[in-house]
């Protein structure tokens, strides 16, 4: 194993590692009213985590993409500054004799996530175990869902959580990774069959059913359970990932068209059958119809966005609490983007979107450089997941689409989400490392 200097990553990480302590400093000045940095322990911890990750990648001679980790660091940094600014008693853990506030808990999960990311990025030299055992992975996914259905408990009308002693986990976050691995394995195997076989109905070319059925059945099962769990955001996300991967694998626009028609049909059926879908859509169309009840959260979010304007209220100067109550309920998970847009304005929100765009762009680049179809498709699926999550929740926050409870990767508070997102980054780095070394071995 040889050391590989990662110059670009180093140069990009430097200003980010300055950004987080500075954000903490500004927040403290604004909140305390004195020119003091305040308690920088968490900021220093954050900086140490990313510096450590960088050094370990260098030490292991990792040749993977160098922009991914800084992009994650920037998104996570903005999120960390925001979580540190919000009231610390919104969430937290008191396990193992430790009392941790919200930001400290999030930092702890970042640590766990980075360890998982490094283990996968460095340890996963061969994707055989992912590729060849795809049905095992599918079974694990279904088992995860089943466990949620049986053992899960409800938060806000959606049953997504399983209680595991000291921590609660959200299996759905990990399900999406497993699902992407299964679909990638399946499509890599049958891709040529799916593209070469032709069956036309009118101007639409229809996929050859026998090759298609296993995946379709699995997907239908997943969607049914997810809808049963009232997890609309996840349903939307899974569908988006599935269509993206199918399109990338086959290059057929008609498949996407069929998928979209199915989606609209499914939505209409769900709208008729489920009261909570109707409620969501009604709130989206006119949140001001019931500003103190169902529309409370979106109305407050819109006001917060309005207060932020272009330049923002400034870190620590937004109206987070009013008379001891949060102005926006669930500001640390679902509405973290709104809080950022309130305090950093349109400018800050754009910067955050810019970091997410860098992440997606590099993800697609890794996919296009991947040596094998499975790796490429898996990376496309994971990238689509990160990108779509960002779009769905920001769209929900800004009332562009109906609000669905989904996390903003690396920004929202939540252990499962942070860990799952870091596992995805680890897989991206592993695939990118393999194409990096192949280039060197063949001398091109």
């Amino acid at each position, binding site marked *: 194993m040889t050391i590989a200097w990662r110059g670009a990553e180093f140069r990009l990480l430097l200003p980010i590692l300055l950004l987080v302590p*500075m954000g903490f400093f*500004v927040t403290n000045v604004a909140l305390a009213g004195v020119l003091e940095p305040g308690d920088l322990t968490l900021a220093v911890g954050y900086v140490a985590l990313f510096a450590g990750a960088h050094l370990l990648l260098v030490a292991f001679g990792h040749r993977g993409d160098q922009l991914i980790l800084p*992009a994650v660091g920037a998104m996570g940094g903005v999120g960390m500054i925001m979580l540190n600014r919000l009231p610390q008693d919104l969430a937290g853990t008191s396990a193992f004799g430790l009392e941790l506030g919200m930001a400290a808990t999030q930092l702890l999960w970042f640590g766990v996530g980075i360890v998982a990311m490094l283990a996968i990025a460095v340890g996963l030299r061969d994707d055989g175990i992912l590729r060849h055992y795809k049905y095992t992975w599918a079974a694990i996914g279904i088992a995860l869902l089943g466990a949620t259905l049986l053992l899960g408990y409800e938060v806000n009308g959606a049953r997504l959580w399983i209680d595991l002693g000291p921590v609660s986990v959200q299996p759905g976050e990990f399900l999406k990774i497993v699902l992407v691995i299964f679909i990638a394995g399946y499509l890599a195997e049958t891709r040529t*069959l799916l593209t070469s076989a032709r069956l036309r109905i009118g101007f639409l070319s229809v996929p050859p059913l026998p090759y298609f059925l296993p995946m379709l059945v699995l997907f239908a099962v997943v969607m049914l359970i997810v809808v049963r769990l009232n997890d609309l955001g996840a349903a939307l996300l899974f569908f988006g990932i599935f269509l993206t991967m199918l399109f990338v694998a086959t290059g057929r626009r008609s498949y996407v068209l069929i998928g979209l028609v199915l989606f609209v049909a499914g939505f209409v059926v769900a709208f008729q059958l489920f009261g909570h879908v109707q409620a969501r859509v009604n709130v989206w169309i006119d949140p001001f119809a019931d500003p103190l009840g169902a529309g409370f959260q979106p109305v407050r979010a819109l006001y917060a966005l309005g207060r932020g304007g272009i330049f923002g209220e400034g870190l620590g100067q937004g109206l987070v609490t009013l008379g001891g109550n949060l102005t926006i309920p669930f500001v640390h998970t679902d509405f973290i983007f709104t809080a950022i847009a309130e305090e950093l304005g349109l400018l*800050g929100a754009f*910067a955050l979107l810019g970091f997410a765009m860098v992440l997606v762009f590099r993800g697609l680049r890794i996919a296009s450089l991947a040596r094998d179809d499975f790796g490429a498709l898996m990376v496309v699926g994971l990238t689509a997941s990160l990108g779509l999550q960002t779009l769905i929740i920001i769209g929900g926050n800004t009332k562009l689409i109906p609000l669905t409870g989904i996390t903003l990767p690396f920004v929202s508070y939540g252990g499962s989400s942070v860990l799952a997102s870091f596992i995805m980054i680890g897989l991206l780095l592993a695939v990118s490392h393999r194409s990096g070394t192949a280039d060197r*071995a*063949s001398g091109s």
Partner: protein
Amino acid sequence: MTGDVLRVLLLLLQLGFVALLYLVLMRFAGSLLRDLRSAEEAQISSRSGIGRLSVLESPADEPPNGTTIALGPINSIGRNVNNTIFVEDDFVSANHAMLTFRGRSWFVEDQGSTNGTYVNGHRIDRAVALSFGDELTIGRVRMRLDR
């Protein structure tokens, strides 16, 4: 008076923070652009191939272990030295298999060999489409199709 000074300082700090945020973004943009340029150059200088075979296992070391073979659109594989890919192994027939690139994907077809051609461990009986990453076994020689 000190309150006013603090307010001005705070404003400057807030602006400084946003400026730093955009500095980071500019650096990302710079890195992306540099990368795109170098990728373009790399594409011009090398890499016109439609695929290559990585030799995973080759008991007689011909083709040598661990090497990659650049592929043309039509490749014949066998123990006869006139094949485009010459394989030295007792279990390989003189004209063993054909590996061809048709349109947008790779196909492999057995040429009536004694011991057969295997794709991902399954023996093939007709022309089979390959995906990148698939493993091809000819005699005791294992090779992987890569981009």
